[in-house]
């Protein structure tokens, strides 16, 4: 591991100032991803600015949503009674990620910015455009079971590994950022870039920009949101595929729907095309099938992950059927 300086930040302004003064400074949350990458010499910051003690609260926003500090741990967020009642799909997504030990340390900001688990990215002997721009991508001709089928390029097939981010893009979370020019707020879907020819540029953040909070807008139908994760073992494994979903009916018609996918996209994948094919249509099997087919039309599967097209199709249809059954039950009850 390369030697570095360490500074415990006492406030966000001061953390940003430090980051601006020092080349190759990095913010540190729980360290569960960055420390590992530093040990593997994939990352080598000259200074760590520990921000894990800042922004530790979850508050109700004026609009009735939630305002989540960037330093809240994954464990605290998943256990929060308001999240469990209003956004249970988010709780489930977080609880499906990593282990209890890791969730106790991992922060909200660190989770959003965790880097891919692509084996070629981790292997410093392999070619990887994300690690070294222009170096090539060994995944293209390699083992791609864990790689993406959506949003890929000839430069990169790596998935974004976060479960939490998948649930959050479905909820239209907004990210509050602070940097040298003050604060800005962006949609979480806008935080991540597609790899294109520069897979090393993963987000739209500037070097010193700090994530200070994530805001969840109020969304009544999110009270019956869910998250389903498919993986190679029952627990403590990254997703082959995951699905965040929620649905609201108007009679037999789909009034509102949110759908996002993990394990198949180069970024947390909001299924905009599927949603458009569902909204305003009759809630039935034919609609569900047409919707997921619309989303997967752009899929570029490789030999080892071609199964993900069928898997995504089946799991999405099954999840939509379950949300439909729940929505009907809810409708009868009220």
């Amino acid at each position, binding site marked *: 591991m390369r030697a570095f300086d360490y500074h415990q930040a006492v406030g966000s302004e001061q953390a940003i100032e430090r980051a601006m003064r020092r080349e190759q400074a990095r913010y*540190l949350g729980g360290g569960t991803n960055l420390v*590992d990458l530093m040990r593997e010499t994939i990352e080598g910051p000259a200074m760590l600015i*520990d921000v894990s003690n800042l922004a530790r609260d979850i508050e109700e926003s004026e609009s009735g949503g939630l305002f989540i500090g960037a330093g809240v741990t994954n464990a605290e967020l998943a256990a929060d009674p308001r999240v469990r*009642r209003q956004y249970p799909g988010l709780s489930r997504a977080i*609880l499906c990620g990593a*282990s209890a030990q890791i969730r106790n340390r991992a922060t909200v900001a660190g989770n959003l910015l965790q880097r891919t688990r692509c084996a070629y990215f981790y292997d410093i002997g392999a070619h990887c455009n994300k690690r070294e721009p222009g170096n090539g991508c060994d995944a293209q001709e390699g083992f791609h079971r864990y790689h993406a089928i959506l949003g890929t390029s000839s430069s990169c097939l790596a998935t974004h590994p976060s479960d939490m981010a998948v649930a959050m893009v479905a909820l239209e979370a907004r990210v509050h950022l602070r940097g040298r020019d003050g604060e800005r707020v962006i949609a979480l879907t806008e935080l991540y870039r597609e790899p294109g020819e520069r897979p090393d540029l993963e987000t739209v953040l500037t070097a010193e920009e700090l994530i200070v909070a994530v805001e969840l807008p109020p969304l009544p139908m999110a009270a019956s949101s869910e998250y389903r994760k498919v993986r190679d073992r029952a*627990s403590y494994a990254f997703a082959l595929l995951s699905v965040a979903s929620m649905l609201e009916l108007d009679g037999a018609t789909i009034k509102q729907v949110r759908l996002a996918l993990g394990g198949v996209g180069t970024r947390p994948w909001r299924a905009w095309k599927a949603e458009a094919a569902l909204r305003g249509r009759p809630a039935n099997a034919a609609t569900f099938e047409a919707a997921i087919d619309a989303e997967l039309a752009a899929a570029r599967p490789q030999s080892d992950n071609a199964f993900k097209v069928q898997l995504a199709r089946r799991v999405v249809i099954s999840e939509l059927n379950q949300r439909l059954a729940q929505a009907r039950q809810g409708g009868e009850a009220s």
Partner: protein
Amino acid sequence: MQWTINGQIRQAEVDFRTSLLDLLREQFQLSGTKKGCNQGACGACTVLLDGQRINACLTLAVQVQGRSITTIEGLASGEALHPVQAAFIEHDGFQCGYCTPGQICSAVGLAGELARGWPSAVTADLAADDIAFDRLELRERLSGNLCRCGAYNGIVDAVAASLGQEAGA
């Protein structure tokens, strides 16, 4: 730098690169905490930070300065074993024993999470205050600790017994 380790204030000057795991094992000779993967994937290095379970290998010692850390060496009171330790012996919760300190610290942390009403990925109704508690829940909650010997059935029995649960279903 200073930490409270197993109730005692301890000091050491270490490089910022030193993990909490290496601090415990190499500076303070607390070798009960094990190094398995050194990358967060096995749980052998599990210790309690202010009562919550964490992986000591993914934590830099400097990140947890001033805080309270409990290792396997700090669980017993004198000669009296911690109830989780006693349950592991009673229910054959180990074979070679390498994963055991991490398993036991993890189980102690798990008990605290249950007491706070924290749900898990397999909790059917996440909004419910009371969590129906069964073997599936325990297995999920212990999934951050691998056992190469595959002593899992004994481990789940031991943890269930220490929580006062029947290890049925």
